[in-house]
């Protein structure tokens, strides 16, 4: 660890490389986290199948790319396909657990997650798949910093989708209905909002965003049926840290997580990368709890 730290001091340019890479990796996490925040906030459901949506989005791109379509064009297709899947899952399973105890919805989505994993394994086999975007790399600072272009594309997608989502929620009629439902589903129903439709759209929208993320994942890294957990966990962590209300803070938390994770991997060795990040989560939760309990004292 000490030599790794020394290495960073001797070659500060490495920090820049790590930071850039980390932030770009974080952008992908942001996509999965947007959706999770949305579903959690509006429907009060923690969707454990988040990562499986990402995985399936990846397969959509992989198969279309194998059929000769340029993988970059398949991002919207993956989103659309997953939108349909999300909608179907809502209509068959999720609507039954919307108003129930959170534990029940966690169980239900956990079930969906296992089902999708095994289904993917059965249909697509356990092989590791990738799709070639055909994009190269940017060279900065005399080639000392190399940034792969597909990661930049992912980053831009994350920004655009985040902004679109924000505007959609703020401006559009349906967005307003979603926000109203999030605030108080019962009151929204009384005011004439069709909350069932709001829920189905929210869940489908979440799946679509994850699908787009998966499409980018398969172009940047790879996809296999058991890919999901990493994304579910990180999305969960990001949303816990950033809170449900604010897309901007979700984005910031995601980029921060990506960067911290990359630095931790470099300094402590990759074996402690995830451990460090999740220890951080525990620390943040404890700290928050301490803050909250202080507030409670005033309420007494």
């Amino acid at each position, binding site marked *: 660890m000490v030599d790794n730290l020394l290495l960073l001091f001797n070659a500060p340019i*490495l920090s820049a490389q790590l930071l850039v890479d980390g932030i770009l990796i974080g952008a992908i996490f942001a996509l999965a986290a947007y959706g999770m925040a949305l579903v959690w906030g509006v429907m009060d459901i923690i969707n454990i199948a988040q990562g499986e949506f990402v995985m399936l989005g990846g397969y959509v791109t992989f198969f279309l790319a194998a059929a000769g379509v340029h993988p970059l064009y398949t991002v919207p297709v993956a989103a659309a396909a997953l939108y349909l899947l999300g909608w179907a899952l809502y209509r068959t399973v999720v609507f039954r657990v919307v108003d129930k105890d959170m534990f029940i919805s966690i169980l239900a989505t956990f079930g969906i997650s296992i089902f999708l994993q095994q289904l993917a394994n059965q249909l697509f086999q356990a*092989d590791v798949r990738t799709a070639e975007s055909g994009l190269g790399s940017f060279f900065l600072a005399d080639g000392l910093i190399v940034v792969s272009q597909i990661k930049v594309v992912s980053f831009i997608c994350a920004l655009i989708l985040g902004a679109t989502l924000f505007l959609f929620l703020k401006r559009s009629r349906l967005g307003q209905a979603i926000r109203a439902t999030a605030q108080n589903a019962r009151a929204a129903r009384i005011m004439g909002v069709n909350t069932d439709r709001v829920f189905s759209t929210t869940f489908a929208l979440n799946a679509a965003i994850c699908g787009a993320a998966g499409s980018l994942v398969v172009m940047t*890294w790879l996809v296999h049926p058991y890919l999901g957990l990493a994304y579910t966990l990180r999305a969960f962590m990001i949303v816990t840290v950033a809170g449900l209300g604010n897309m901007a803070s979700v984005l910031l938390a995601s980029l921060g997580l990506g960067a911290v994770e990359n630095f931790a991997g470099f300094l402590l060795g990759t074996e402690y990368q995830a451990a460090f990040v999740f220890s951080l989560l525990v620390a943040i939760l404890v700290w928050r709890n301490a803050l909250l309990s202080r507030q409670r004292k005033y309420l007494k």
Partner: protein
Amino acid sequence: MVKMLKNPRWAVLGAVALVLAAVGPASPKVEGDTIIFGAAVSLTGKYSTNGKNTQDGYELGVKRINEMGGVRVGGKYYRIKVLYYDDESTPARGAQLAERLINQDGVKFMLGPYSSGVTKAIAPVTEKYKIPHVEGNGAARELFTQGYKYLFAVLSTSDYYLRDAVNLAAEVAKQQGRDPKSLKIAMAFENDPFSLDVRDGVVEDAKRWGMQIVIDDKLPTEINDMAATLTKVKALKPDILVVSGHARGATLAVRQVSDMKIEVPMLAVTHCDAARVAETLSKAAEYTLCAAQWDRSLNYKDKWFGTAEEYAKRFEKEFNYAPPYQAAESTAALLVYIDAFERAGSFDIEKVREAIAKTDVMTFYGPVKFDATGKNTAKPMVLYQIQNGDYKVVAPTKVAEGKLIHPIPPWSKR
């Protein structure tokens, strides 16, 4: 019960159970003129692809042996058959199924499952019941340090996977007039039993040559990105980068070394044939060294299948895909039994075990000869280099068809 009787399968099972009860558990599982083997293979779950390769390997062996008239034991010819169960890629299930094969189905000769993990769970069971267990897909070194008497493996143990890459680098350095001691090695291994075995082999050989290990990263099992490790590689400029993390590790390493334009004179990985890196990553994969147990271009030959290439053609005809080494070593495991039966001239379990232990046979898969711990020490690993999109065998030099390109040209010239 009436329903059960109507179903012919139940009737057969019932009859088998009655016969077994009459004969008693100590007699071998030979029904009429058919010898029955048992195997738990991963048909679902994360090893399902390789599990199928394993099953296909066994099935091709069964088909070929039966086609040739069967096995001659004590003057009589017997046909062979394998009874399979799906272990769902979980070791615990594998152990249960082994119990079931032995206790309920009365199987006396076990073939191995896929993966070291499942083999590790089944080996104690076969040991407990003193049932021979010949396997071709459990490469962990640990399997052969437990003093098992009934476990035999036809493949090279996992610590041998990348030793040859280190030795090759040392040889090349010597040819170029460099002291192998001056070489720097960067290692990135997944934190799982298999890859850590591979690491042990690399560390041992690197120490033997006096090389300097500059990076020793352990990749988490859910690796999604290698940027942190590769940034270190970029800074420390090692002479060799070795990576092992199954198909995921291979794909990530090759893809990200290319994306980040990491300059390294030698890149050696495991599982790049399983990950099909040459096919899916095309140019990015050029010059990568890949370790494998077997290749169809090798000049091994046996009386059952002929040459390795003939085996491969037969396999392709049967299953419509080229045989990966996982299939070849499974077939080889079955051949070890066939050879042992013929030499033992009996189905007596102890005699068969003795015969297996004394195996010294050439197969299309390579020579098989077990040491005292039950692992095959006669067969070397194979090292490919991807050249113009093809896997060319470059080591061991005796059987190599291609010549190593070293060092890997810089990215600006590729």
